């Protein structure tokens, strides 16, 4: 997508439709981290798109409802800063239910865009302390040694302050999905 996406995707202009908030409500968590490339260099020109269910595990229905409602839509777009860092606040989603009734542990879906990626990456953020992780079918498909890359970890034991770093390559390479 090239280095100059911010003029199109993150315009600093009132009414930007995708600056929607994903926070609000009582169970708000803050998640921060950094994106690093294969040389360990921070990536200052990335954008993350986050999509999540609400605290009841339901996904928002329609654009019209969103315009009418004033409730958080569940979608947000966050660029990294010059240090490759991002930070956002979100309501913690509830567990979701799959087509066959299987329960998915609370998670955020994350799309990552940047110069050098000819198509975007797809990954997820889970909450490291959630007991539902043990039975999550998607985590179950990830080799055990790599699951930690999808876990937001509490900072200093604070359940509302989480850290999740992205490694594009290397031993600790983040798990990316082919969806």
């Amino acid at each position, binding site marked *: 997508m090239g280095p100059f996406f911010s003029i199109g995707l993150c315009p600093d202009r009132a009414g930007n439709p995708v600056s929607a908030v994903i926070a609000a409500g009582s169970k708000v968590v803050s998640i921060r981290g950094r994106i690093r490339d294969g040389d360990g260099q921070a990536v200052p020109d990335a954008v993350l798109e986050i999509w999540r269910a609400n605290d009841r595990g339901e996904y928002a229905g329609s654009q019209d409802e969103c315009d009418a409602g004033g409730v958080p839509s569940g979608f947000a777009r966050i660029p990294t800063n010059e240090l490759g860092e991002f930070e956002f606040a979100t309501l913690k989603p509830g567990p979701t239910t799959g087509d066959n009734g299987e329960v998915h542990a609370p998670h955020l879906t994350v799309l990552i865009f940047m110069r050098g990626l000819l198509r975007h990456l797809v990954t997820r953020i889970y909450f490291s302390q959630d007991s539902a992780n043990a039975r999550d079918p998607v985590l179950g*498909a990830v080799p055990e040694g*790599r699951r930690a890359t999808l876990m937001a970890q509490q900072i200093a034991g604070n359940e509302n302050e989480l850290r999740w770093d992205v490694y594009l390559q290397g031993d600790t390479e983040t798990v990316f999905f082919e969806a």
Partner: protein
Amino acid sequence: MNSLPFFPKVPPGTQPQYLHPPYRSSLKRAPTKPLILLAGTVSERTGPIFGHAGVHVNDSDLTAQHEGPPAGERIVVSGTVLDEDGRPVRGALVEVWQANAAGRYRHKLDQHDAPLDANFDGCGRMITDSEGRYKFTSIKPGAYPWGNHHNAWRPAHIHFSLFGAGLLSRLVTQMYFPGDPLLEFDPIYNCVPDEKAKRRLISSFDWEHTTPGFALGYRFDIVLRGRESTPMER
């Protein structure tokens, strides 16, 4: 949740691989470990939802965002956004961004020694209509040099970002112009292995939207991933 769309596998060769060595920036950013197969769950087959209240009619005229008109050759770009069944994707957000006529982006990191245009920001957005159509007015972007290799030039292009029926429809792509001699040398255009799929990135000259005394028309149709939830009975 029966109404969620389906997302069949993408036909091989029609989308780029992450690692494409001729594009140098991919070397340190493309994943090196195997991707984990994710059968589309409700998380990817829904959304995203963000409302359309922030999109205004004049966001689709990139030549009318300032006091005066921008320099350059006026163009009208239009097309239809379809799903894999050929059905129009209605209410899809289309975002576009581009360089000005001299090949310069209004971005602090763009160091190309070409003039900025005080009358041109180079970004716009619109929502597809009930037949999946979009249309915007702009100026033809210039080609510009980049540091990928010796004497590297990007062909003129417009960046497109689209949201469709579900997260898996998400598409960020580039539209090119017909007959551009730089295309065959461009590692980004040439990242798509399938020749026919690659050509779909080139717009076509469009008499229908060529407006007498005003602008040349270009047509760029877009197919997003996904199909209706209920397969047609045959």
